[in-house]
């Protein structure tokens, strides 16, 4: 619904609200209203004149509508008796009727459309609410069914979880055993390597010590005769090479 139509509808409603007392007020004033009557009496005695405050007004109120069509009213009225008359009510009614006709022509359709759309919207919302309620009830039924079967489902899950745990346990044990075997093998290999290295170091140390000891022993114990024998053997080798012509 457009804003313009909404405003038109609002204007019609406001007009009706404003005009309604015109239809209702006069007969009401014409009827007995002790409180209002007393108030008007009080104001008349205090102010002593004005619209609707003179004897004619009280008289008019008692008689109903006193000026239907006369434009000779108010302080400038030609007729002195019409000075306290209100504006002509008949023209006001005609004016209001014209206004109402124009407004109904302009605002009736938008107002009707607005009401129809509002009706449709509310109906749609109600329908949607009913559908949601139905779905919620269905879901509630499903959950209630599930809750009823929950123990069995828990038992099934427990069995499944235990089975998976056993499988995982077996897998972990197998992996740990494989790791342990690998570590054992690696440790054995490292131990063997260390033993071999130590054996070589020991062997090297023994050889170094033995050669050093042999060197020292020979230095101490080689006699002049031994030196001469070694020199003779050496010279003999050189002579043999010289005879055979073998290159060095």
């Amino acid at each position: 619904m457009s804003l313009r139509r909404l405003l038109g509808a609002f204007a019609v409603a406001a007009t009706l609200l404003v005009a309604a007392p015109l239809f209702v007020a006069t007969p009401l004033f014409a009827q007995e209203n002790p409180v209002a009557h007393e108030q008007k009496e009080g104001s008349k005695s205090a102010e002593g004149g004005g619209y609707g405050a003179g004897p004619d007004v009280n008289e008019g109120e008692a008689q109903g509508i006193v000026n239907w069509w006369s434009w000779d009213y108010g302080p400038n009225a030609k007729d002195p008796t019409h000075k306290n008359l209100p504006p002509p009510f008949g023209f006001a009614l005609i004016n209001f009727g014209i206004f109402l006709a124009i407004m109904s022509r302009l605002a009736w359709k938008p107002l009707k459309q607005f009401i129809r759309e509002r009706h449709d919207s509310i109906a749609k919302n109600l329908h949607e609410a009913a559908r949601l309620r139905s779905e919620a009830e269905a879901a509630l039924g499903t959950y209630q069914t599930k809750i009823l079967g929950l123990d069995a489902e828990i038992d099934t899950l427990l069995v499944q979880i235990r089975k998976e745990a056993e499988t995982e346990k077996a897998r972990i044990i197998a992996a740990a055993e494989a790791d342990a075997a690998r570590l054992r093998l690696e440790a054995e290999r490292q131990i063997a390597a260390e033993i071999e290295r130590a054996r070589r170091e020991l062997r090297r140390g023994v050889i170094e010590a033995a050669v050093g000891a042999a060197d020292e022993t020979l230095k101490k114990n080689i006699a002049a005769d031994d030196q001469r024998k070694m020199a003779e053997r050496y010279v003999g080798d050189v002579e043999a090479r010289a005879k055979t012509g073998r290159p060095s």
Partner: protein
Amino acid sequence: MAVGSIARRYAKALLEIGVQQQTYDALGKELERLADTLRQSPELRTALENPVFPIEKRKLILDDLARRLALSKTVRNFVMLLADKGRISALPDIARVHRTLIDEHAGRVRAVVTSARPLDPMLESRLKTALEKQSGKTVLLEKREDPTIVGGLVTQVGDTVYDGSVRTQLQQMREQLLSE
């Protein structure tokens, strides 16, 4: 240019002069005497090699040294040429190469025999004979003593070494045992 190459060129030139004059042995000995003197006196070597001193002064020092060492005119002229060319620092190398060239020219070879204790003269003679027979040249044998070889002999002829020392045999035994 490499020092060895320079030394060889100068040594060869001096040898040719000595061969022409039939005095190469004497020239070689003079050159070695001069080289020994330079080797034994670092101050003298510094004075002769330092370019801060004028060349004339250095040549005067060399001339005085040549007179004191009673060097021949050929060797004196040779060292003056070295001074002019700025090659005095190469003199020890030139002397060494010159000696080798003289030996080659004369059909000689130098050998160094090392023993832990003094070598018996008879064995020395036998060794010299054997080396001469093997090399086909006259062997000039130089004897050295080195107790660290423990026993046996080590002979070096040119670049060839005949190692019969106990020290080397112990080393070979050690290497063999370690490689097993």
